[in-house]
C-alpha cells in the first residue's frame, strides 16, 4: 500500500513474492523512486503463484493503470496475465525476468539472469586454486524457471573448466555424466537440478550440503569451490562447509546482496555475491514508464528474444561484490548504511 485508495493509479507494479528478501528491496526502491514523480503507483505481490499474479494484474487493470511493470514468478506462465493487460492497451514492461512466448511484452529491463549465473561461475573460475579442484554445484528450486536460467549461465562458464580439469564435480552424478556437453537441454538440466536443488530453502540447502560432505571422500575436500545459487542458501551451505575440518578453504558464490550475506562477506564466510543494483533497474523501469505515460519512446540498449518476438530491452550490469569492493559498491554508493554492518 503506497498510495491513497481512490486515486487513479497510472503505473501498476507486480512483484513475484514477499517471501524473498530480494523483492523487499525492490519494493522499497520503487517506493523511493516514485516519491517525486507526479504519477501514482501501486505494488502487489504474487506470492509465487501465477494465478495470484493474474488476479493482481486484473485488479490493476481495473484501477486504470496505463503501464504495467511486472516481474513474474514464472516467465512462461505470465503470458495470460500480460495479454489481458495488452488487450486494454496497457504498456507492459517486463521487469528483471523476461515474460516469454507472447507478443504482449513491450519492454524489458533486466540484469539478465543468465549473466548472473555466468558472473557466479566466473568468480569461481577466477579464484580456482590449481588443478582438479572439487566443485560443489547447487541450484534453486526445481519448480522455478529462473533457477534454470541461473544454472544455464553458470554451466556455460563452468563446463569448459570442468572439461579442462580445473574443476571436478563433487556432488552430482548426473552432472558428471553430462560434463562433456557444452549446452544442456532443459531435460538434462532438470536431472542435475533435481539432484542438487535447494528449493531456495536454506534448511534444505543445509541438509543437502551435509549429506554431500558426508558422502565426499578426502579427495573431494581440501580447497573447494561451491556454486551457491543465492544468498540465503549460500549462507546455509557455507555454514556447513566451514565446520568441516577437511575443507581447508572454500569459495562460494551467491546473489542478491542480502544484508545478512554482506555481513558474511565482510567476515569472509561467503566469498561473493552478485549485486543487482535494484536502484538502477528501478530507475530504468520507472523512467520507461514515465516516458510511456508522457507519450515518449523510451530509449533501449538492445533486444531479447522471448521465443515469440524480439523485445526491446535495457540491460543493467550486475556487479560482482566480494570482500575487496563491498564497501565501495554497497556502502559508498549509498545502497546500505554502514552501521547496518560490523567489522567494515
Amino acid at each position, binding site marked *: 500500500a503506497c498510495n491513497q485508495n481512490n486515486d487513479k493509479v497510472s503505473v501498476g507494479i507486480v512483484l513475484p513474492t514477499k517471501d524473498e528478501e530480494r523483492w523487499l528491496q525492490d519494493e522499497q526502491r520503487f517506493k523511493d523512486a516514485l516519491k517525486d514523480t507526479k504519477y501514482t503507483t501501486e505494488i502487489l505481490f504474487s*506470492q509465487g503463484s501465477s*494465478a495470484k499474479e493474474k488476479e493482481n494484474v486484473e485488479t490493476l487493470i*481495473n*484501477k486504470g493503470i496505463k503501464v504495467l511493470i511486472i516481474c513474474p514468478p*514464472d516467465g*512462461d506462465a505470465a503470458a*495470460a496475465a500480460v495479454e489481458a493487460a495488452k488487450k486494454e492497451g496497457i504498456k507492459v514492461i517486463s521487469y528483471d525476468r523476461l515474460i516469454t512466448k507472447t507478443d504482449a511484452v513491450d519492454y524489458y529491463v533486466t540484469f539478465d539472469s543468465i549473466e548472473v549465473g555466468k558472473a557466479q561461475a566466473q568468480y569461481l573460475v577466477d579464484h580456482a586454486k590449481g588443478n582438479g579442484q572439487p566443485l560443489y554445484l547447487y541450484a534453486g528450486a*526445481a519448480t522455478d*524457471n529462473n533457477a534454470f536460467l541461473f544454472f544455464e549461465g553458470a554451466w556455460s562458464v563452468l563446463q569448459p573448466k570442468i572439461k579442462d580439469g580445473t574443476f571436478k564435480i563433487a556432488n552430482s552424478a548426473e552432472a558428471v555424466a553430462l560434463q562433456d556437453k557444452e549446452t544442456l537441454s*532443459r531435460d538434462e538440466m532438470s536431472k542435475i537440478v533435481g539432484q542438487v536443488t535447494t528449493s531456495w530453502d536454506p534448511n534444505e540447502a543445509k541438509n543437502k550440503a551435509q549429506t554431500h560432505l558426508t558422502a565426499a571422500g578426502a579427495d573431494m575436500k581440501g580447497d573447494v569451490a561451491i556454486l551457491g545459487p543465492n544468498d540465503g542458501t549460500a549462507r546455509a551451505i557455507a555454514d556447513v562447509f566451514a565446520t568441516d575440518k577437511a575443507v581447508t578453504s572454500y569459495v562460494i558464490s551467491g546473489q542478491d546482496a542480502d544484508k545478512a550475506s554482506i555481513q558474511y562477506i565482510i567476515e569472509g564466510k561467503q566469498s561473493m555475491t552478485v549485486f543487482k543494483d535494484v536502484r538502477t533497474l528501478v530507475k530504468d523501469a520507472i523512467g520507461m514508464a514515465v516516458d510511456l505515460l508522457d507519450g515518449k519512446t523510451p530509449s533501449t540498449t538492445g533486444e531479447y528474444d522471448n521465443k515469440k518476438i524480439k523485445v526491446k530491452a535495457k540491460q543493467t550490469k550486475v556487479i560482482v561484490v566480494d570482500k575487496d569492493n563491498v564497501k565501495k559498491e554497497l556502502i559508498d554508493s549509498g545502497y546500505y548504511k554502514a552501521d547496518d554492518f560490523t567489522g567494515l
Partner: protein
Amino acid sequence: MNVIKEAKPLKPANLGKEAKSLAHFNIREYGMYIALIVIMLTFSIMTDGLFMSSRNISNLLDATGYIGVLAVGMTLVIVIRHIDLSVGFAAGFMGAIAALLLTQAGWPVYVIFPVILVLGIVVGMFNGVLVASIGIPSFVASLAGMLIFRGALLQVTEKTGTIRIDNAQFNAIGNGFIPELAEVGGLKLLSLILGLAVILFYLYSEFSKRRNKIKYQFEVLSRPIFLLKLIFVSVVISYLTWILAGYHGFSWTVVIMLLVVVVYHFLTTKTVLGRQVYAVGSNPEAAHLSGINVKKITYIVFGSMGLLSALSGILFTSRLQSATTTAGTLFELDAIAAAYVGGVSSAGGVGKVTGSIIGAIVMASLSNGMNLLGVGISYQYMIRGAILAAAVIFDVMTRRKRG
C-alpha cells in the same frame, strides 16, 4: 416449515411476524449470503464502486472458478466425514497432463477433456479405495497422495519446465467469453438472454413448487412474502447479468462453474445418490444397516472429487495458458476454507454445495477487494484467517442456538 396445515389466508398483520420468524429460522442458511453482501457493499463503498464494476465482478468470478469447483467436490467429501488434501497437486498434475497431450501429443481439445476428466475419476477412486476399503484415515491417505502428485507433477514437467499452451480453444475456457450475438446498448445480448432464461426458470420452478405444496396442503409462504422473495432473487440475478453483460458477458469459466453447481445441487437434493451421501455422512453405521453401500458412496464421492480436480486443473491451466511446475499449490486449503465458510460441518452430514460456492466467492472477494484497496500481503493473510475463523464461529453459534 412444511407442516401439514391449511395454507394460511393472507392476513397483513401476520406478515411482519412471518418474515421475522423466517429470518430467524434461516439465519444460518442466509448468514453467508448476508456476509457476502456485507463484504461486497463494504468494498464497493471503500473503492468508490470500483469493486462492483462489471469488469471487476467478471474478473472476480473467473478467479473463483478453479477453487469453486474444488469446493463443490470438497463439500461432499467433508459431508461424508473425510478430507482430501491431494486435490491441489492432483489438479496441477492433471492440468499438466492435459497440456502435454495438447502440445506434445497434439490431441484435439475435445478428446483431451473427456480423457482428463476420466483420469480424474480414476485417480479419485484410487483415493476412495485407500480410504474405504483399506481403511486409512483420509487425512493421511490424501497427504500421501499430495506428496505423490507433487512429485508426479515435477516429473512430467521436468523436460519442459512450464508448458506454454497456445491453443485458442483450450485457452478460451479460462479466459474466453460466450459468443456475442449482438450488443444492445453496450450490453452483450446472449448473456442477457441467458440471464433472462435463468430468471424464467427460477420463477417457473418456484411457482410449480408452490403449486405442488398447495396441492399437498402443506403450509407455504404467504403470497406477499413469496412475491417479495421472487422479486428479490430476480433482481439479484438481473443485476448480476446486467453487470456481466456490461463487460464481455458470461465467461466460459462462469458458465462451467454454474453448470457444476446446478448439477451438484440437483444431485444432492433430488436424487437417491445425493441423499445417500448425506445419510452416510450423518451416520455411516446406520447407512450401512439401511442397505446403503457405504463403500460405494465413498468411492463415488472421491471419484467425483477426482473429476472436479481434473476440471479444476483444466480451468487453471487454461486460465494461465500454461501448465506450471507449481500448479495446484495450496488449492486444497482454499477449497476447504471455502467449504467451511459455506457452512459445511466436519461432524458430517451437513453442508450444501451452494453454500460452498458462496464461500469460495466470499474468500475470492476478500482477496480481490483487499488488492483493490492495496492492502499489504501480510495483512491479507491475517484478515483472511480472521474471516475464516469468524465464519465458523458464527456457524457454530447459530447452530448451537437452534439446537
